[in-house]
């Protein structure tokens, strides 16, 4: 099993990062809301993702954190083009793939793979493990040397499963093992980018660590770039080189993991970090309590979207939307969208 690998050497973030692999600019997705009988008029829109910019370099892991409904999963689905963007553009290795048709998208799609949250719903219960992993290879006419079966057995071994499990069905596996099958299926395409949408949140704690270690090993050994979507801040810190914090369809703050976790500037990042409980009874840091719930994305607040729950909000926050900028005091590449950011020196470590 792959557990031993994790014990052997501490995982270092890859030092050599290549050029930009995926560039996203002004990405927007509005889901229309229709009402009325016969002639369905559009009465509004759920502004799930609203003008999101980020770049993922080759071999880099970008973490995307936020509460439910902030648009992080929608962003993942837009990047894989499972959803059609309303506006903005997606560049993959410099090619604009924002509205590319299915036929021309096919070769690129095989390089961008997805790992899903629910290991029970994402595997066909009527297919054997072999068929599940071979499927995408056949669709994309990938002929591995030595044939499909040999390749599948290799892949099973890579993800820490017994190659003898080739002819078994998903129900014979536990949640963590199923997630490994999903990972093997993604790896069969030799992807350059993996979109992992909450890959471990459905698993038990002891199994989560096994899967995170496996993904990290793949990232370092195969140089795969990741968009790692999760709500668990500690796991995102552990896995990602850079982290983007989303709130109501917008990126509030983005930067290296040390910038985000050691010197966060946005009040929302502070609130998220202080709300996440640590398994330490001596963790006596002052806690910021946010009142209320996330507002509805159908009718988001004007100006700064976080202002309704923010303790620093002023008149300016209502009228003027703060741009995502490298504000004074930030390190290079650390961008914050806030009019009244937290002082970097008083940030909780």
């Amino acid at each position, binding site marked *: 099993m792959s557990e031993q690998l994790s014990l052997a050497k501490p995982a270092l973030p890859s030092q050599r990062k290549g050029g930009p692999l995926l560039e996203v600019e002004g990405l927007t997705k509005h889901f229309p809301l229709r009402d009325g009988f016969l002639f369905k008029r559009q009465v509004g829109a759920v502004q799930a993702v609203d003008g999101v910019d980020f770049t993922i370099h080759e071999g880099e892991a970008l973490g995307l954190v936020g509460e439910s409904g902030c648009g992080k999963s929608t962003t993942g689905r837009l990047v894989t083009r499972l959803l059609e963007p309303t506006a903005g553009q997606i560049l993959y290795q410099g090619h604009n793939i924002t509205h590319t048709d299915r036929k021309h998208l096919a070769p690129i799609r095989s390089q961008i793979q997805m790992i899903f949250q629910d290991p029970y719903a994402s595997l066909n219960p009527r297919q054997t493990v072999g068929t599940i992993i071979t499927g995408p290879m056949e669709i994309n006419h990938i002929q591995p040397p030595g044939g499909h079966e040999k390749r599948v057995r290799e892949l099973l071994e890579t993800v820490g499963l017994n190659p003898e499990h080739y002819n078994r069905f998903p129900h014979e596996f536990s949640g963590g093992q199923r997630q490994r099958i999903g990972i093997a299926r993604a790896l069969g395409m030799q992807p350059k980018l993996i979109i992992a949408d909450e890959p471990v949140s459905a698993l038990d704690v002891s199994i989560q*660590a096994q899967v*995170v270690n496996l993904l990290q090993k793949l990232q370092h050994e195969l140089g795969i770039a990741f968009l790692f979507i999760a709500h668990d801040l500690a796991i995102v810190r552990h896995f990602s080189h850079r982290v983007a914090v989303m709130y109501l369809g917008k990126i509030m703050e983005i930067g290296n993991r040390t910038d985000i976790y050691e010197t966060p500037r946005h009040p929302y990042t502070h609130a998220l970090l202080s709300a996440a409980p640590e398994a*330490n009874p001596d963790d006596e840091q002052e806690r910021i309590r946010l009142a209320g719930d996330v507002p509805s994305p159908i009718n988001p607040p004007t100006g700064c979207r976080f202002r309704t729950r923010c303790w620093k909000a002023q008149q300016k926050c209502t009228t003027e939307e703060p741009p995502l900028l490298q504000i004074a005091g930030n390190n290079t590449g650390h961008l914050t969208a806030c009019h009244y950011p937290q002082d970097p020196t008083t940030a909780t470590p």
Partner: protein
Amino acid sequence: MPFLSVHDLSVQFATEDGIVKAVDGLSFDVERGRTLGIVGESGSGKSVTNLAVLGLHNPRNTAITGEIVLNGHELTGAPQRTLEKLRGNTMAMIFQDSLSALSPYYTVGRQIAEPFRKHTGASRKAARERAVEMLRRVGIPQPELRVDDYPHQFSGGMRQRAVIALALVCDPQLLIADEPTTALDVTVQAQILDLLKQLQQETGTAIIFITHDLGVVARICDDVLVMYAGRCVERGTVRDILTTPRHPYAWGLLSSVPRRKAPVDAPLRPIPGTPPSLLKPPTGCPFHPRCEFREYVGDTRCQDERPMLTLDSGRGAACHLPAEQQKSIFAEQIRPLLGRS
């Protein structure tokens, strides 16, 4: 005398594949005004234990043995009628999934008022007022208006608050919360944990808090019981379990969670393997197939002999490792991984 005392509880289910020993010889006490956390992975018997306390198992396929004593009354084998009087009244439960815990056909107010009317015989009007008051207590804005809303009109955090209001409507003396914050976002989770703590301070309710999240345990629990394969493997105060755990399974749980303050490159140390099937639990110590420290005990003792849980002023671990060795292994091999001094 503890408010709830469970002694040598075993719960077995008859299934097509054989008998599942979901809980095997579990004992614990809960005092008034204190919170006991029950920690473990899925299938460890946490929820089954509490359904047994509430008497919610189907008696046709479930065999429950042992003693469950609530405030001096024996609950095992008690008639349904007695249990019905206690449930929702003296003891109440908060379920994990607030959407399925509330009926979509009735207003939130009516669902909160119903158990109050049943247990106290209050009038419709008084019960409605009580529902409004409960919604206000759990922090729902404009409770006079929201009391007539249906569950789908509430957000996830508000629904969980409504479920808490429903559980607390008859001022229960024992509250069982089964993963009440798992489905919620961290900021809302923090609000709910604060709310439960505050309500406990006001009413002195005893709480059993079931969770798999050790961070949540650190915030809300006074005492902790770690379950594995239907048995208690370690017990102690929250400080004992989180700072000086003795059982290798507790070590594994702690070191497999990434920590925000640990060095970024510190690898996670998962527990190898998967939890056992309860149809055929392992012999001896149930954790021995996944335990990395069984060589320290030597021979096949872990395989052959079931370690007993002996408590010394509420603290103990069911492990064959001698106490001194438990301390030294934790200090030398586990603590450095946790990023704490």
